[in-house]
């Protein structure tokens, strides 16, 4: 009776503490702005099954299976632990009430699962000791990780202790179902220590309950709903803003984020995968996506009192570097490559938060790196990033015959893009594409002097006001010219035309030239006159906006394989895990003064894969082209050249002499 009372007191205290602590934190999510994440119930439920219960992303990494075991053990042992508590309070109620044919298998399952969990815990401890994922602010918290592992481990030990003792005392008729507990029983003497184990179990379980909401293991509660509420689309577009007097833009304080942004921050498991994937972190920039998420949580908690009393947050979200703030440098270092989001096991959305902070800096404070002033003015006044006169858009037409797009007569609008129009190197790609299209008999035309910049850089840099202007103009132009099918040579144009303009009511069928070329090759409309062998090994580099953001991985590879006769070589990180060239998100137009340059790092991966023989990096994006050519020069490598997919295909069409 005494034991019962003491246990009741303990569980009551623990439960109360758990509730208060959880509420204190989770309830802060209400300070976020509204956002609808309840649409498409079915798809959301499916994502939750796949990512939370199926642990899809977790399993994608070698060690993931360990977490899978712990996660499922935890779920299964919830039954055992519930029984422990209930029968601790009311000894008459326990699983023993079940018929043996049900309880037997359950006991077997508990036994096996507990052992698996124990093994997984030991492995996890070893791994933590061997690999450090510390960042500046999360060192302290790796203590948390060891503590939690110890808790779980002790629970398993106690479990076997209790049941081993029970068997030793001959109180378990179903011991045949409990191979491991039976084994433990042989070392349990007369089972006199049962009550010790029982209290160990009780105390650890209650401590675990209290510790849960104040540690990163909060994710045990939040990761599942977070997977349900995760965004359903790829992060290739940002929400529109409404420009009206009195509105504010972007996130300048924590309560400018949406509730989902805030929930994200409580769901982070601190696994560090995003930080490993991030090109900015890898090259020693101030940005670490994991810290961005962590800062939101710390900022929210630091400002909890202010928010609860209806005041403005005091601790700045953007400011001098600190655990609860994001430095200006970090915010501008993001290439919007999406690698962080692709790798996060609990589907946290890092990049949109960074863009929200950029929006606030640009639109509310006009605070941005000096280089961007020219970029913004050029895009606004001359509708191209370089500020070249729009009248020069047709200059490249002197190299070949170029027709205007006429609705009804021309099938495709070939949207050249600013780089394809003005950048000397990319102009050659434009001509290569056009030439191949002509050979394949594709009907295409251009907008010529009327073509405008799509506005991609402005949007990713947070200048939504400027993007909005440019998007409206383009949507008007496309509508007036009755454009429906577009060939884009630049993945950024492709993404903007296809995904951003949809928000403005313009539905276009946009293909990247590499997709079209692959299709034409398959259909036999392009008939190579020779196999391309002169380029050496060809490595294909995934552009973030083609691959991760638009799911186009296979087509460029198919096109290369069709003309070279061999599958392209892969960099160590490829496809979904490809490493950015460093130019996305408007980084193309900014200085990169800190740390190693991202393009130089990526070129290093290419060199590793290609070796020293003459070879080729094949790209599908004008930015990647520039970044690779510059990176190779930087590394003083003259054996590798950089070509666009279209140029590689064009090689195969050269007349055989």
């Amino acid at each position, binding site marked *: 009776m005494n034991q019962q009372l003491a246990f009741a007191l303990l569980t009551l205290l623990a439960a109360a503490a758990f509730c208060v602590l959880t509420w204190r934190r989770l309830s802060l999510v209400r300070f976020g702005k509204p956002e609808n994440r309840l649409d498409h119930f079915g798809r959301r439920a499916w994502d939750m099954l796949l990512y939370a219960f199926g642990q899809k992303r977790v399993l994608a990494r070698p060690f993931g299976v360990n977490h899978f075991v712990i996660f499922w053990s935890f779920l299964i042992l919830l039954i055992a632990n519930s029984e422990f508590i209930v029968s601790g309070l009311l000894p008459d109620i326990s699983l023993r009430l079940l018929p043996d044919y049900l309880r037997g298998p359950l006991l077997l399952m508990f036994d096996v699962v507990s052992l698996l969990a124990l093994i997984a815990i030991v492995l996890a401890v070893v791994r933590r000791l061997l690999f450090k994922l510390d960042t500046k602010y999360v060192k302290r918290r790796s203590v948390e990780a060891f503590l939690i592992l110890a808790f779980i481990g002790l629970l398993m030990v106690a479990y076997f202790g209790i049941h081993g003792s029970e068997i030793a005392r001959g109180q378990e008729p179903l011991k045949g179902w409990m191979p491991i507990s039976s084994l433990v029983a042989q070392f349990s003497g007369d089972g006199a220590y049962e009550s010790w184990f029982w209290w160990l179990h009780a105390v650890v379980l209650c401590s675990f309950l209290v510790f849960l909401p104040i540690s990163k293991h909060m994710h045990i509660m939040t990761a599942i709903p977070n997977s349900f509420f995760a965004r359903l689309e790829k992060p290739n577009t940002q929400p529109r803003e409404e*420009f009206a*007097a009195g*509105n*504010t833009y972007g996130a300048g304080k924590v309560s400018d984020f949406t509730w989902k942004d805030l929930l994200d921050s409580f769901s982070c498991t601190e696994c560090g995968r995003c930080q490993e994937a991030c090109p900015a972190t890898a090259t020693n920039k101030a940005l670490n996506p994991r810290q961005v998420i962590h800062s939101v949580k710390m900022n929210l908690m630091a400002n909890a009192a202010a928010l609860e009393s209806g005041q403005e947050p005091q601790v700045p979200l953007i400011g001098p570097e600190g655990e609860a703030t994001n430095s200006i440098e970090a915010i501008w270092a993001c290439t919007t490559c999406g690698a962080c989001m692709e790798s996060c096991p609990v589907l946290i959305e890092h990049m949109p938060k960074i863009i929200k902070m950029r929006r606030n800096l640009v639109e509310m404070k006009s605070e941005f790196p000096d280089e961007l002033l020219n970029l913004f003015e050029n895009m606004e*006044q*001359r509708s191209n990033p370089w500020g070249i*006169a729009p009248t020069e858009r047709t200059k490249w037409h002197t190299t070949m015959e170029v027709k205007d797009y006429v609705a009804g007569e021309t099938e495709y609008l070939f949207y050249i893009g600013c780089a394809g129009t003005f950048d000397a190197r990319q102009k050659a790609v434009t001509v290569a594409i056009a030439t191949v299209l002509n050979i394949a008999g594709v009907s295409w035309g251009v907008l010529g002097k009327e073509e405008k910049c799509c506005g991609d850089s402005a949007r990713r840099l947070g200048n939504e006001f400027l993007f909005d202007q440019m998007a409206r103009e383009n949507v008007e132009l496309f509508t007036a010219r009755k454009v429906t099918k577009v060939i884009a040579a630049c993945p950024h144009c492709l993404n903007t035309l296809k995904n951003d303009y949809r928000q403005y009511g313009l539905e276009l069928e946009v293909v990247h030239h590499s997709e079209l070329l692959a299709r034409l090759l398959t259909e036999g409309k392009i008939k190579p006159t020779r196999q391309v062998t002169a380029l050496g090994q060809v490595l294909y580099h995934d552009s973030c906006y083609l691959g991760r953001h638009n799911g186009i991985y296979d087509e460029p590879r198919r096109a290369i394989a069709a003309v070279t006769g061999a599958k392209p070589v892969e960099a160590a990180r490829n496809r979904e895990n490809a490493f950015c060239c460093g130019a996305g998100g408007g980084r193309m137009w900014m200085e990169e003064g800190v740390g190693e340059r991202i393009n130089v790092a990526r070129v290093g991966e290419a060199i590793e894969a290609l070796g020293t023989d003459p070879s080729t990096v094949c790209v599908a994006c004008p930015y990647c082209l520039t970044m690779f050519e510059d990176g190779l020069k930087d590394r003083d490598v003259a054996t590798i050249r950089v070509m666009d997919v279209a140029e590689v295909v064009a090689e195969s069409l050269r007349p055989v002499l």
Partner: protein
Amino acid sequence: MQIVACIKQVPDTTQVQIDPVTNTLVREGIPFIVNPYDTHALETALRLADDLHGRVTAISMGPLNAEATLRRALALGVDRAVLLSDRAFGGADTLATSNVLAAAIRRLNEEDEVGIVLCGKQTIDGDTAQVGPGIATRLGWSQLTLVDRIVNIDLEGRRIRVRRKLEGRHEIVEAPLPVTITVVREINRPRYPTVPMRLLSRERQIEVWDNRVLKIDVRTIGLKGSPTWVSRIFSPQRDMGELIGDGATDPAGAAKLLVEKLLSKDLISL
């Protein structure tokens, strides 16, 4: 104190071509922008106003569509914008232009004392760099041209000290207020309008002053008040370039020659 920034709307000259037959600029379809130097004049005015707790008025002489230029100035934070527009002002050369601008500044001065007038060094279309000094002369004020830094302003002693950027050297000069200043691009990085300011600027009033307001003698403004006229505009034939050294066989020697030449012409410095 009131600070006046003179800003001009200019065609985006990177896009302008000269019609060889009529000798005039082909301006059709060419977008207008704020004269780039004037964005720096405006920025200087705004920063000075912040420091001195003054007010900034932007003025521009031009056709009614020059309003866009002033709206931009409002978005950047000027307190007042006045467009000087009248058919009678049309066809002005630099003398007539500065007559109109000076008259407007005098009028502003009657309402609220003007301490500093800021102009760009020059425009990218007329390129004369005469209007700033012209205004100073008409007003009888000191003129500080080619300024790349405001060193110090002594409000009590009513003096201003600036740095002028000259070829290969700087000059620190001082003058009594009121003063007309023309600035070079190095003086600052112009600000970029915030979205709330842009939206606000759409609602704000731009005053339009014609000659009924300014009442300037019509013989001194517009075409009638312009003693200069354009006799011909043409693109000069470019001189043949010069091959320096023999880069093929002696690249180092050629590079040395080139550097010496550039140094002697003061195009680069060590």
